[in-house]
């Protein structure tokens, strides 16, 4: 029995308890809260904050996946090869921009709330997915690609039936990296009033309440670890299917 079989359900239960029954943990966090201050964050339900946080991450990652994969497909076609360096530069720029700077720049245009956070997460998520998809599409087994042409698949059929399914495990690795980065980065969104778990952490920082900081940090961390693990499992399963 591997360590994962015990750890995985254990961490999942811990996460559920932290989100659904935060009051249970009052004795644990009590020593960390300042004298007389509340121990458990109660200004909003942790469940609704979690759902809103995950929703933002999912929307941004989905959008980043759609754009990156489309772009990667285009630049790996013969006609699009010339644009590969340019598209790499653009995706790299998205990565080098600090998310806080994106938030600051986006607020005047999009106002406070979820909008600027979505933009920042989206830009930040492009590069890993794009790079991985391009690499996967350019390193497909040559004999399989030759056979796919040779038996009479047209371009579209080759893409949909052979190239994308074979590239999927490596693509998923990129999506996983993006999702996990976004999970952490989304907490900063609360500085511009997006509803995320960052709210708990920031409230803790403002009032010097370590109990809040720890509570918010722990939930985000557990989400990240468990989602990362789930995607690793999925990749391993797909990779077993497609290794030639």
């Amino acid at each position, binding site marked *: 029995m591997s360590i994962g079989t015990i750890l995985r359900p254990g961490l999942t239960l811990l996460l559920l308890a932290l989100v659904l029954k935060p009051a249970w943990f009052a004795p644990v966090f009590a020593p960390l809260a300042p004298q007389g201050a509340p121990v458990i964050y109660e200004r909003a339900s942790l469940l609704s904050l979690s759902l809103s946080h995950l929703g933002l991450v999912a929307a941004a990652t989905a959008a980043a996946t759609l754009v990156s994969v489309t772009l990667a497909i285009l630049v790996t076609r013969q006609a699009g090869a010339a644009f590969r360096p340019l598209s790499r530069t653009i995706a790299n720029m998205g990565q080098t921009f600090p998310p806080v700077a994106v938030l600051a720049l986006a607020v005047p245009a999009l106002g406070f709330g979820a909008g600027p956070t979505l933009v920042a997460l989206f830009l930040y998520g492009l590069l890993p997915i794009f790079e991985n998809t391009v690499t996967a599409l350019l390193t497909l*087994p040559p*004999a*399989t*690609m*030759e*056979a*796919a*042409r*040779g*038996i*009479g*698949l*047209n371009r579209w*059929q080759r893409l949909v*039936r*052979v190239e994308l*399914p*074979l590239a999927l495990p490596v693509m998923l690795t990129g999506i996983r990296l993006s999702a996990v980065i976004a999970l952490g980065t989304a907490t900063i969104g609360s500085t511009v009033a997006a509803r995320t778990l960052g709210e708990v952490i920031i409230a803790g920082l403002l009032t010097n309440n370590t109990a809040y900081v720890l509570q918010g940090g722990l939930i985000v961390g557990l989400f990240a670890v468990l989602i990362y693990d789930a995607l690793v499992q999925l990749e391993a399963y797909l990779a077993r*299917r*497609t*290794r*030639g």
Partner: protein
Amino acid sequence: MIEIERITKTYGDVHAVDAVTMTAQTGTITVIVGTSGSGKTTLLRMINRLEEPTSGEVRIKGQSTLATEPHLLRRRIGYAIQGHGLFPHYTVARNIGAVPELLNWPKAKIRARVDELLNLFSMDPAEFRHRYPAELSGGQQQRVGVARALASRPDLMLMDEPFGALDPIIRARAQDDLRRIHKALGSTIMLVTHDMEEAIRLGDRVAVMDEGKLIQHGTPAEIIAQPANGFVADMVGDVERPLRLLSLIPLSDLVEDGAAPGDALPAEASLRDALAACLWTGRNAVPVEHDGAVVGRVTFDAIRARAQIHP
């Protein structure tokens, strides 16, 4: 009938294939043999338009290949390559059924065809149908690759070094399988190899290519006995010429009445096998059997006499 007419492929100033003209009769195996860089693979790939010819044309059953969309043309032409090129994410059954699926065959017909082909290649359908390529041995992967090329009963099958990645013992079995299947199905096959031994073993006709040009095109016996130039002679190998010639002649050609000691050889075996048996066991003749009954013998002297007559 496959007619190749003055087909040429140039890359810049280099003639990869230089005005090659040749004809392959329906139901025969033509083996194109040459060293690497001789243009043999380019020639093959121009037949199903994986490479577009610079000039010249190919006609299959009188119809120019330029008249059909390339991907539709390729669905009518079987294609098997070195390293099999199976789809790793498809089961054996889906791999073999890939072309019939493209041609919109009904599901039941595809399933029946897949089972028929697996049986033909001595692979039990119940055992192999649902496996993935990664779960097969190299020889099995290669057989599935050839089965995929045959699935839609194509007019023509192209094979590019199909046995190149196999070890010698499995390669010999795969070659025997191909001959047997060719006999059973009567398909027209064009096969590319760098191995003259394989060419002589498999080909009804052998085409020798060098530097993009077709040097000689004839039966294996002609290629061995009357090489057109030094290059062809080198490919055949001077030392091995008599043995290669003998390997083409079945024992049934020289069988005579009489008895001989030792184990019998089947009538389909070649004179080379009989010569080896004579030398190895110190006999002057070997018995020949057909359907389990001894029908006569082949003598060492007769083999020696036959080796001196060049057709």
